[in-house]
């Protein structure tokens, strides 16, 4: 690597000194510092904050590889504003406090211009204070529970109204479901999503006793009682539908138990928000065929852009690899950031942020994604039916739905509005016409 032609002298020598100091402490060869220092003096630095080890590695490593692919493609196109993009990859190891530590390192030591990262909500809550304190820029690519708005975060995944609500509408309008079982893993995303859905269903005229809510711990395996309860819901002949926010391994046992109880997708359909191509790739799909999932992207979407994306991904990672929704979120987020940096003529966070509002970029599924002043995207919502090969048959696609940071279906947050462009506030109370707080609620 050529390290001679560098301009940015002051910060990089400081970072080098820091590293040198650390290595002395670790009694390691100083020869290594040449390599490390080299990457520290790059032009435009893109931090990648995804777990490469630990429980989340299986999901997040894919996103790291996606980012490396996107950066490689951009560099092949001549970089950005005449400068080369250099990825800085760190491993927060599925350890939530480590996310905060690594975010601080990326922003204050590596001095990255932007961070793409995080998967779980708790990891996002962990980095929020750091990103806000140091005025960083984070692109968060995963569907989440909403009820949050940070000046320094762009949420490129779905808010509840871009995944859960349209899926519920599909149940109500297309399938005629009258009784609902909301099953979820016991953590913040299912809790908040189900709270919103429960209220939404009541507003739609579903009686409280026709809504069954249940939470199970991570990795839950004994589903017989819960499945029996769900089946018993339909004893009076009313159509039952399951809305699942069950996460991770627990899904395997859940679908298996459904099949064992002789329940087919026609009897009781399940729509899942956490089961996608990547999760299905490691599963025997026999028990899942016919059940549904709601996302903003499916690999099976037709179109030239998607075909190109899949082709490049498979060429880089292997024929067997699949693409999924958070990958598309990074694809859109990265390209919007690139265009915003071009428009701003700089990577300075405040300028880029201002240039982000109203950025448009074509979705891989067709249509245009648009960045809204509340830091969420307007994206279409797709519902797919699980196929034998682990892919989805798209059975419904809406037009672009604008993401909503604060849900309209809970009284406390219905009055809140996020508008960083004109109001300059992420938690604006529309009744009292005041900004509740500038920092986000972590």
């Amino acid at each position, binding site marked *: 690597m050529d390290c001679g032609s560098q301009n940015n002298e002051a910060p990089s020598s*400081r*970072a080098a*000194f*820091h*590293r040198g*100091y*650390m*290595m002395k402490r*670790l009694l390691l060869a100083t020869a*290594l510092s040449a*390599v*490390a220092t080299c990457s520290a003096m790059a032009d435009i630095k893109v931090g990648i904050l995804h777990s*490469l*080890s630990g429980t989340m590695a299986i999901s997040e490593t894919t996103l790291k590889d996606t980012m490396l692919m996107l950066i490689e493609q951009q560099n092949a196109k001549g970089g950005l504003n005449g400068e080369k993009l250099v990825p*800085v*990859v*760190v*491993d*927060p*190891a599925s*350890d*939530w*406090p*480590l996310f*905060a*530590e*690594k975010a*601080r*390192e990326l922003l*204050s*030591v590596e001095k990255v211009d932007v961070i793409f990262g995080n998967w779980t*909500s*708790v990891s996002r*809550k*962990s980095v*929020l*204070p*750091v990103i806000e*304190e140091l005025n960083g820029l984070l692109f968060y690519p995963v569907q989440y529970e909403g*009820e*949050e708005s940070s000046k320094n975060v762009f949420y490129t995944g779905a808010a509840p109204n871009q995944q859960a609500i349209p899926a519920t509408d599909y149940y109500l309008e297309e399938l005629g479901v009258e009784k609902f079982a909301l099953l979820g893993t*016991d*953590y*913040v995303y299912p*809790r*908040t999503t*189900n*709270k919103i859905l429960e209220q939404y269903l009541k507003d739609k005229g579903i009686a409280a006793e026709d809504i069954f809510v249940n*939470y199970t*711990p*991570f990795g839950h395996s004994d589903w017989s009682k819960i499945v029996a309860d769900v089946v018993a819901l339909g004893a009076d002949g009313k159509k039952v539908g399951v809305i699942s926010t069950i996460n991770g391994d627990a899904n395997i046992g859940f679908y298996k138990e459904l099949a064992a109880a002789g329940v087919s997708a026609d009897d009781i359909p399940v729509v899942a928000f956490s089961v996608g191509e990547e999760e299905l790739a490691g599963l025997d799909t026999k028990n899942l065929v016919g059940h549904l999932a709601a996302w903003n992207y499916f690999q099976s979407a037709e179109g030239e852009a998607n075909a190109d994306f899949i082709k490049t991904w498979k060429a880089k990672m292997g024929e067997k690899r699949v693409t999924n929704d958070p990958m598309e979120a990074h694809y859109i987020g990265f390209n919007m950031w690139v265009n915003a940096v071009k428009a701003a003529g700089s990577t300075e966070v405040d300028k880029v942020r201002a240039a982000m509002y109203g950025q448009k970029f074509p979705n891989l599924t067709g249509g245009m994604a648009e960045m809204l002043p509340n830091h969420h995207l307007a994206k279409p919502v797709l519902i797919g039916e699980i196929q034998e090969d682990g892919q989805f048959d798209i059975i419904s696609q809406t037009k672009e739905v604008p993401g909503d940071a604060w849900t309209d279906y809970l009284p*406390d947050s219905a009055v809140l509005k996020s508008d960083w462009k004109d109001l300059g506030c992420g938690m604006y109370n529309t009744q*009292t016409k*005041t*900004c*509740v*707080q500038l*920092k986000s*609620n*972590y």
Partner: protein
Amino acid sequence: MKGPLTLFLLKHPSALIFLSILALFTLLVSLGSEALGSGFISTSFIKTLGKTLCFCLIAIAMDLVWGYCGILSLGHFAFFGLGGYMIGMWLMYERTRLIVVEAAQQAPLPLSAQEIQDAIGTQIFGVVGGADFPLIWGFSHLLSVQLLLILLVPGLLALIFGWLAFRSRVTGVYLSILTQAMTLALSLYLFQNDSGLRGNNGLSGLQNLPGHEQTPQALISLWFFWASAFALGLGYLLLKLIVESKMGNVIRAIRDDEARVRFLGYHVETYKLFIFTLTAILAAIAGALYYPQAGIINPAEMAPIASIYLAVWVAIGGRGRLYGAVIGAAFVSLLSSWFTGGQAPDIALGSYSIKWVDWWQVLLGVSFVAVTLYAPKGIGGLFDHFDKGAEK
């Protein structure tokens, strides 16, 4: 005039050397910090160093309970985490209260005390779908009580657990399994959303000290670094006093042959209970200093693996010599931070390249096995000639 402490330090130069090195290290780091000095040590590294000192503190506690007393506890991170939760409750409550009160000043009508309390509850528990304060948050508005609870809650848990276990003469590997079960049960309980401590989300934003919104993190991180260094120094001195006292001889004897000590007329259970509870409290203090630097505490911190790492640190550093635990904890946790930071260059071996992110834990496991088999004195064994008290 020479006080008893001076005499003690002169008699045990290793403690004096350790405290001097710690003081010198603290001074040098302060001089290099962004807040006070030249700024060549970044704030993020100050935090890493401060957290490492907290690890060193729990490591010397582990050394006392395992290295000296022979109780292989694989659950001390439960106490560490509880200490963090206790201080975290106050930090979160007070920070949120200040935000709510500030926002209320813009409102046309002043809020009543109950409305303010409700607003705080909604803010803290809104993310986990609640709004009301659970009973255990009853004292969260009082710093003094929460500080006391840092000592009381883990202390009482250790006392009750230890009393039940030692009274039934559970020893050896059975006790280790029991301590693992304790920390696992606690973490599973706290993972539940209804446990009142925000479930999987835990307590976050702890690095923001209430009332110090304008103080830069560079300075706050240094305060906590100093506090951690002070706690480590004090803890080291306390434990050194214990292991060099008559009681130190008894607990070493318990480790070597518990039955014989019992036949000699010592009340073994009381000694073990005292050591177990004392080290639990030290672990809790370390945790209470650690989490405001880490920024977030979550039940995953109490997963059994954390306590196993603790045993690995102490084993690699060398048991039965307090400085060994310090060296082990500092060495392994800093190395871990370096390897996971993506700064370690990959090693290309033709068709395969060694990525340290993947291989670091393998390396740690191999070195643990190697140390246990070939260098039972650990890294600390290299420094034994400074210490007459070390077991050769």
